[in-house]
């Protein structure tokens, strides 16, 4: 546990407080927005509370990133086993396509198939977030030193035991780095779900773009950016703690 004064100077805390303040208190900034953009009425987006938009947005990111992590790590494990090695190029290609195929295009294709709202958004976010996790997980698993794997096998650990006790813990820093990238990107990308009717922090952005109301765009964008920065900082903290735990004697 950090000591009290470390907590006070902790950047995560301050960014978190700023984010929470804006999330809950954006309407209080109405005078400022009105002064900067006098022709926009109302000056603050009001077709829904930012809090509920954020909750929906976060829910989409958590669900999509959770799936991407489970399936991404699963695929990485599969292609690093003797039986799955031949599939590695295919898995690599699929993950790469998942990220190079524009999420907007995925939405356009998914909507006729599965409807509007959160469902096509989840599909787009999942595909988009797969590559960093798969690549990092593969690198992490392959980075386990050969001598360690040989000793583990030679001492009598079963394949499952080797994976669970030796390979996964050693690959964890790389996997965490991949998840961090994937989640941070997903937070920004989730905004496009608003174009197909999902409730996200992108809703004020696209509303603002459509109705030529710049303050709404700014309000949505600032909240998305702060959310992404905050999550990224929390992951960084987590990675440091994992690293420190492993290195401490």
């Amino acid at each position, binding site marked *: 546990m950090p000591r009290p004064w470390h907590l006070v100077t902790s950047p995560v805390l301050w960014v978190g407080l700023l984010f929470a303040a804006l999330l809950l208190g954006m309407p209080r900034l109405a005078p400022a927005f009105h002064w900067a953009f006098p022709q926009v009425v109302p000056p603050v987006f009001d077709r829904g509370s930012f809090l509920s938009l954020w909750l929906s947005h976060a829910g989409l990111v958590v669900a999509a990133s959770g799936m991407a992590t489970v399936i991404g790590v699963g695929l990485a494990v599969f292609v690093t086993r003797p039986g799955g090695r031949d599939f590695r190029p295919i898995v690599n290609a699929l993950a790469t396509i998942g990220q190079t195929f524009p999420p907007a295009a995925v939405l356009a294709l998914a909507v006729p198939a599965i409807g509007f709202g959160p469902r096509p958004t989840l599909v787009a976010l999942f595909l988009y977030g797969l590559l960093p996790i798969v690549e990092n997980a593969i690198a992490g698993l392959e980075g386990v*030193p050969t*001598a360690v794997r*040989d000793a*583990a096998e*030679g001492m*009598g650990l079963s394949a499952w035991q080797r994976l669970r006790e030796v390979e996964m813990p050693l690959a964890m820093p790389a996997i965490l780095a991949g998840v961090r990238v994937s989640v941070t990107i997903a937070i920004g990308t989730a905004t496009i779900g608003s174009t197909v009717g999902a409730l996200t922090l992108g809703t004020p952005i696209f509303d603002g773009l459509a109705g030529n109301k710049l303050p709404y765009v700014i309000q949505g964008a600032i909240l998305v950016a702060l959310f992404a920065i905050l999550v990224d900082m929390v992951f960084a903290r987590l990675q440091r703690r994992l690293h420190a735990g*492993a290195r401490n*004697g």
Partner: protein
Amino acid sequence: MIELARVSKLYDGRPVVDDLSLTVPAGAFCVVLGPSGCGKSTTLRMINRLVPFDSGTIRVGGEDVRQIPPEILRRRIGYAIQSVGLFPHWRVEDNIATVPRLLNWPRTRVRDRVTELLELLRLDAATYRGKYPHQLSGGEQQRVGVARALAADPDLLLMDEPFAAVDPVTRAALQGEILRIQQATKKTILFVTHDIEEALRLATTIAILERGHLAQWGPPLDILEHPANAFVAGFVGGEAGGLKILALRTVSERLRPGEHADGEPLPSTASLRDALALMMARHVDRLPVVNPAGQPLGVITLADLVR
């Protein structure tokens, strides 16, 4: 303890191990010796089924290795390799406890066994048990590796060039340790090396491999004095014979008890060759000698080496 009967392994149609038959009696320190690529590591790894073999039979303790599930077999056999392969994310204590935990030993028994093994390998248990591998030197890591191999008290130890990656002084110390441990516990050890000096110092029997065949098999003095063919003669007699004798005899055989000398002492288990090398490095003609516990025994001089 180990029987290999007409074992072969082919790689891309080429025999890496060719019709090899070998018997290692229980309690022997058998060194498998040969140049790079002769199949010695492959042979060792076929015994614990890390490498499959194409024909012949291998028995450990009378049982056909193919009839035992590989994990069960390996938990009965100690395994130590050159790069040690300690699990970097586990403390020394947990590394050593690996096989006992796999065998579901009770926690107190495991803890006591770790203490016992650290003491056996001359590492202070309280200091070392909580350390992580990256905090250890190469020699310390290899000691932990040996402790880990011995943890479940196996009757057989397979060691694949375990001391090749450490400096010569540490290597000599580790060789002394494994000799002492084997003599005290009477375990069977199959030890692979390409280092003739190491083989001569450690082995009760040596098996020399040449390109997958067994070239000669017997005690060290036999191999030195009656090499079976030109290859063996060349492999062991590369240097002048006298120097090999120096490697076979230890300081304890020639030291002068009670006398004193200055400088870093030499363990009594060191070979005469090590003593000569140290004298040359330090430009002295006498060295102090200590016993394995570090107590002074006496002195060895240059003249003693050629007595």
